[in-house]
């Protein structure tokens, strides 16, 4: 298989003056190419830590991450990471914000700029190119943040509660938007969320984590008998509440 991400025996211990915190214990899983996988778990269990390790922001204490089953991830880490809020820079226009990732990665070239422009156009932001973030709505800002990440053409997309700062109404619309964009661009995605319905509505698999030190408790493949599934339409599917109950029970069982 091409482009899959394998975590093997990942363990993470934080050190600080008060002592050690074992956050993740022996996490092993392969994320397959093109799939959308959600990770849910009790708060403080180590979900963000997991994403930070994959993104290379935190070193793991032990274990290895492979890319394509063979190469260590460090040799070619091309990962897009979206945080809880958009963190757009107020003093840059939408266009300049979108180019930020490319600038930092020193990837600015006529091709990458053209790609960024095509993303802006495809997702209806071209006319806002020269506006400043303060002039956009919350949903639009989140879309700009996604395009900023996609512009660097990452192999894998990580979302850490990327919609939790939005109000409910906007959140439903933005997840629908973002889902379509991610599927259209064919990105492998790992999403951390507190919201079980959100995880069911977007994912191919939902991973339920245990309390700290965290490890995988259960994996639920999500499948709806319907064409053109979107986060909004699948909420009406009869299977939706069945999945909800299963995941809810798994989360709350000892």
């Amino acid at each position, binding site marked *: 298989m091409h482009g899959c991400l394998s975590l093997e025996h990942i363990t993470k211990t934080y050190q600080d003056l008060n002592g050690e915190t074992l956050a993740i214990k022996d996490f092993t899983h392969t994320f397959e190419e093109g799939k959308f996988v959600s990770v849910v778990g009790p708060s403080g269990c180590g979900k963000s830590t997991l994403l930070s390790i994959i993104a290379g*922001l935190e070193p793991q204490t032990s274990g290895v991450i492979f890319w394509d089953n063979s190469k260590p991830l460090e040799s070619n880490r091309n990962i897009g990471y979206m945080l809880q809020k958009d963190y757009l820079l107020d003093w840059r226009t939408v266009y300049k914000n979108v180019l930020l990732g490319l600038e*930092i990665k020193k990837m600015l070239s006529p091709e990458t700029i053209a790609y960024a422009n095509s993303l802006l156009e495809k997702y209806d932001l071209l006319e806002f190119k020269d506006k400043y973030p303060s002039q956009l709505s919350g949903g639009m800002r989140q879309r700009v943040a996604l395009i900023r990440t996609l512009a660097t053409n990452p192999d894998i997309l990580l979302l850490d509660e990327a919609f939790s700062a939005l109000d409910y109404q906007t959140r439903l619309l933005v997840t629908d938007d973002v889902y379509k964009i991610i599927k259209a661009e064919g990105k492998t995605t790992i999403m951390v969320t507190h919201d079980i319905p959100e995880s069911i509505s977007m994912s191919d698999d939902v991973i339920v984590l245990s309390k700290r030190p965290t490890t995988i408790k259960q994996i639920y493949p999500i499948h709806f008998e319907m064409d053109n599934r979107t986060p909004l339409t699948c909420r009406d599917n009869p299977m939706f509440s069945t999945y909800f109950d299963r995941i809810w029970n798994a989360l709350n069982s000892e």
Partner: protein
Amino acid sequence: MTGKKNLSAREKYLRDKKRYKISVVVTQISILLFIILGWELLAQLNIIDSFITSSPSRMFATFKRMLSQDLMTHIGVTCLETLVGFLLGTVAGTLIASLLWWSPFLSEVFSPYLVVLGSLPKVALGPIIIVWVGAGMPAIITMALMVSLIVTILDMLSGFTSTDTNKIKMLKTFGANKLQTFTKVVFPSNIPTLLNVLKVNIGLSMVGVITGEFLVSKNGLGYLIVYGGQVFQLDLVMTSVVILGIVASILYNAVVLLQKVICKSSKWQN
């Protein structure tokens, strides 16, 4: 029906606002006139001794005499020293703050020294500066620099270190190194801090310059004030103080104007 009765609520609101504003300005001007006229009157009637208190008419005469002599040179010298000290203090302070942001180790090591230097009244350094730098313009500029430097370092450093950590994390998700973190987020998000530092520094730099001129100089408004005091010419002292006040507020307002222009032309919220 009179026209007044037809005013809409909005028009009434605006009219009241305008009236309020006018009454503030009228009161301000009245106070000034009252002081000038009262002072002049008391001096004319010999109720106060204008040899000690001077008087508006004597100050005006002094001003005209100074203008035909070398007043402009004195103003120029003071302004030059202030601006040079201001620029040096701001630039050097910002550079040092950047360095301390870069190295938390250095920052922690130097923090108690900065606190001590910051709370030391800088006038106390006057004699040392004169001995080391020599009496004259360099000593005065050094004095102005000393007064604004530490404040700049402390303010800019605290601005740099309180930059939104999530914005920094966002940059790191793209693999930003330390220099990129500084130039793309830490420095730009502290432009408002810098603009406020500028506003404070122009005043501090002038304090340094006048102190310096009191101690060593042969030129400048500070020199005129000290000289006037020494030869007991209160006309000269008072006139110079008033001129200094005007010059200081012009410099300050120039910086405020600069701040407004920068804030408007970019999207920095203040």
